[in-house]
């Protein structure tokens, strides 16, 4: 029995929507910093003509990722632009060319690669963790400590999102192949695929594909948010607990997202770099949720144009990039899709009344990290960030369960996010 919340999933229609391709957008905005680590270094110049899949920014330093053009076109601009989440960063804007050449050969497909070749190919393809954090995969699979379990995270516990579920259903073979490659590169003996029990079709398809591999086991997990958070996942399936401030490799585990595994399989066996991803477009305001295969950098407004008309006006809707629980609220629709964007959620504006705390303790019961949000909030109100840190603030993963449960509608998670910055 996990600890967390069980919000309405709202996935009933979207999970049966096949992945659709979108027309090539007029323009793509590719940010050089869409992963954890140093921003990549732009290697093209203004007015250069680029092919689809051409390298436009190379990794800078050890923890960084390559970036490829997602369409064929002309580089219109390389400058610092606004990014979502109040940041500003360098981006390459590519304008579409009329003739979109077919992608023939990105890189040479590898037939039976060894670990080094896989790692090199993943680095060349610019693959990062596509679940949300964006940790460069080629760094993740070379952990400083030996790892014995590789984990495929197919939980997708956030409400509304069905991108990973569709990927696992439609590309079950490729996902398992990609996972096997990652497992091989990491040197893990055992592979576990964890899927929540509300996705019967995906479970069936993945079990079918995984039957070929002896050392890969499919585990069905309870549907609870935040089951997909790696610390929760590892504790619930293997019984190992990650100490505060440590990473999964410290207990001998690596965790990969389902979409990442698909990208790895495509990079190794088809030579395709990471230039597109599956994005769920859903939300209360959309009567017909869909799953799109979107070229990276496609503006959000462009993606939404195919789902709903007249959404250009902000204020009538709240648009989130990522899931509704942990996603970023957008202040403009001109931002490009990132490697880590798993969904675009359009909700009705919602205001929290923020009444005083009634000490009901629901947040304490629900916190998956076993913290005491009510006590943390008490310190926050006195702006005592030192005591918050002593009460375990660093362990907070900002999942939003406490805010969700709070009957006084206090913005607990936002407060903790702020406090973390002020520590």
């Amino acid at each position, binding site marked *: 029995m996990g600890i967390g919340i069980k919000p309405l999933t709202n996935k009933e229609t979207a999970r049966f929507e096949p992945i659709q391709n979108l027309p090539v957008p007029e323009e793509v905005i590719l940010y050089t910093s869409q992963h954890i680590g140093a921003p990549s270094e732009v290697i093209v110049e203004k007015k250069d003509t680029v092919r689809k899949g051409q390298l436009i920014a190379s990794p800078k330093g050890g923890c960084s990722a390559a970036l490829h053009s997602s369409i064929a076109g002309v580089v219109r601009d390389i*400058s610092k632009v606004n990014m979502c989440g*109040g940041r500003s960063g360098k981006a390459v804007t590519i304008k579409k060319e009329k003739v979109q050449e077919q992608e023939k050969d990105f890189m040479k497909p590898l037939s039976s690669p060894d670990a080094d070749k896989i790692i090199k190919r993943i680095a060349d393809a610019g693959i990062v963790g596509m679940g949300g954090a964006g940790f460069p995969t080629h760094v993740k699979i070379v952990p400083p400590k030996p790892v014995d379990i590789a984990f495929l995270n197919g939980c997708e516990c956030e409400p509304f999102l069905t991108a990973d579920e569709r990927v696992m259903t439609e590309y079950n073979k490729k996902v398992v192949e990609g996972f096997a490659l990652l497992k091989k590169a990491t040197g893990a003996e055992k592979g576990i695929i964890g899927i929540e029990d509300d996705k019967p079709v995906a479970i069936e398809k993945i079990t079918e594909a995984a039957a070929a591999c002896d050392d890969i086991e499919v585990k069905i997990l309870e549907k609870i948010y935040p089951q997909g958070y790696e610390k929760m996942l590892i504790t619930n399936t293997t019984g190992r607990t990650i100490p505060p401030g440590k990473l999964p490799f410290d207990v001998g585990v690596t965790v990969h997202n389902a979409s990442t595994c698909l990208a790895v399989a495509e990079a190794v066996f088809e030579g395709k770099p990471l230039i597109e991803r599956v994005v769920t477009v859903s939300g209360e305001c959309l009567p017909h949720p869909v799953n799109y295969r979107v070229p990276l950098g496609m503006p959000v407004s462009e993606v939404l144009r195919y789902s709903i008309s007249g959404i250009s006006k902000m204020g009538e809707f709240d648009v989130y990039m990522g899931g509704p629980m942990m996603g970023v609220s957008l202040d403009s629709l001109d931002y490009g899709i990132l490697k880590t964007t798993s969904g675009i959620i359009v909700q009705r504006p919602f205001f929290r009344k923020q009444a005083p705390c009634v000490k009901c303790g629901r947040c304490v019961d629900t916190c998956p990290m076993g913290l005491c949000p009510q006590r943390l909030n008490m310190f926050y109100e006195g702006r005592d960030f030192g005591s918050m840190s002593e009460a375990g603030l660093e362990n907070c993963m900002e999942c939003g369960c406490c805010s969700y449960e709070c009957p006084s509608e206090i913005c607990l998670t936002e407060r903790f996010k702020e406090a973390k910055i002020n520590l």
Partner: protein
Amino acid sequence: MTLYQSIAVLGSLGVVSGIVLAVSFSRLKVEDDPLVEEILQALPDINCGACGYASCHAYAELVAEGKAPADMCAPGGPETEEKIIRIKGGDLSSEKKIPKNAVVHCKPQKRIFSAGYCGIETCSAANISGAGLLCRFGCLGFGDCLAACPFDAIKINSSGAAEVIPEKCTACGLCVRSCPRDIILMVDYNDGRASYVGCSNTQEGKNTRKVCGSGCIACGLCVKRAPEGTFVLEDSLARVEHSGGEINVEEIKCPTGCIYESVEKTKN
């Protein structure tokens, strides 16, 4: 009877503890350095922490022991330093110190928003999402600096951005640390005047124009027109290298008008 008993018991208790206190006071007396007390008198005694020590008393103790220099007190400025050196009986250095003040490097005519914000109303929280303010380097205007300033030297001006009142600013540096966007910087005030660029946007000119009508577009006119070495252009943003009387803001004719002069009226 009970009345007398209690008076007797409490009275004798008082006498006994009085004797104990008197004895322990004379036996365990700690000689306080009179120098510390004197230095503390010279300090502003506001415990702002700008010197890097826990309190004014802690700093005074270290100065008395000779473990800390006399010029660390930012709010007190040169006068306090002079007083401390007099108390300690040292020589006054002939070198004249340039007074500093904090300046908010964002002075927009109008701040442009692309979306509303209904979250926590502090700058550090608003900075996580950007609060809908188009400029990623602009003043969010929720007043974290205002709350940090012990001297009431910061106000929110009509455009919604924070502004330092130079007469009240003591250059303690608390606002500089409180700003999540790092747009409050210390500026030299030569003869009570300082020129500064009222913008912190390091985006290229055309992108800056999109987000603010009065931002630095890195045209470089100030570098050309002002005396050499006063302005530098770095990372698509002009910056004042040497402030003082030699810069004439009127003469530069900044196309977006983002070069300002801050004049400090006499303190009192």
